[in-house]
């Protein structure tokens, strides 16, 4: 599934034009991006939480060359699925996978 499929869904569901649907999807993800850049986390109930974490500088190694180097401090985004989403995914997995093993 890609952004184009999301546009399609929104087009079907509320009758916005595809162009409008596309714009609003871009705005949603852009806005989330901006929020992360400000260091803020986003919680979507029933879906999950995106957290922004600050990583300290640390010593690392280039796995290709074996060279020692410093990994610069950086911000990373982590995602945790909500319990509801986790439970639904697991339930479906059990349903679709029994009989296989």
């Amino acid at each position: 599934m890609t952004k184009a499929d999301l546009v399609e869904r929104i087009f079907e569901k509320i009758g916005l034009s595809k162009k409008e649907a596309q714009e609003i999807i871009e705005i949603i993800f852009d806005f989330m991006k901006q929020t992360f850049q400000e260091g803020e986390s986003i919680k979507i109930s029933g879906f999950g939480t995106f957290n922004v974490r600050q990583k300290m500088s640390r010593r690392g190694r280039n796995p290709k060359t074996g060279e020692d180097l410093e990994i610069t401090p950086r911000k990373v985004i982590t995602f945790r699925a909500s319990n509801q989403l986790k439970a639904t995914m697991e339930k479906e997995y059990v349903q679709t996978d029994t009989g296989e093993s």
Partner: protein
Amino acid sequence: MTKSVLIEKVTERIGSLTRKQTEIVVETVFESIKEALIRGEKIEIRGFGNFKPKQRRARRARNPKTGEKVDVPAKRVLHFKVGKALREAMNPK
């Protein structure tokens, strides 16, 4: 930030939609992603990131507290990988 704040801010920015309409759009976005994940599909939001269901095999693990063996059933977990554009935007050079 929560979903309702996101809906409000997006409504302000768009201007041409009511709060209710934006709410339906935002709900549809996350519901659609969720449904695709349940079907076992990968979701690719260019510039933002990918959501990918991954299968974990059943395994025998140990309760670290008691040392007891426990069976962990097979399950599907969700992996999110941040997109390149977003990762770079988070850490401007």
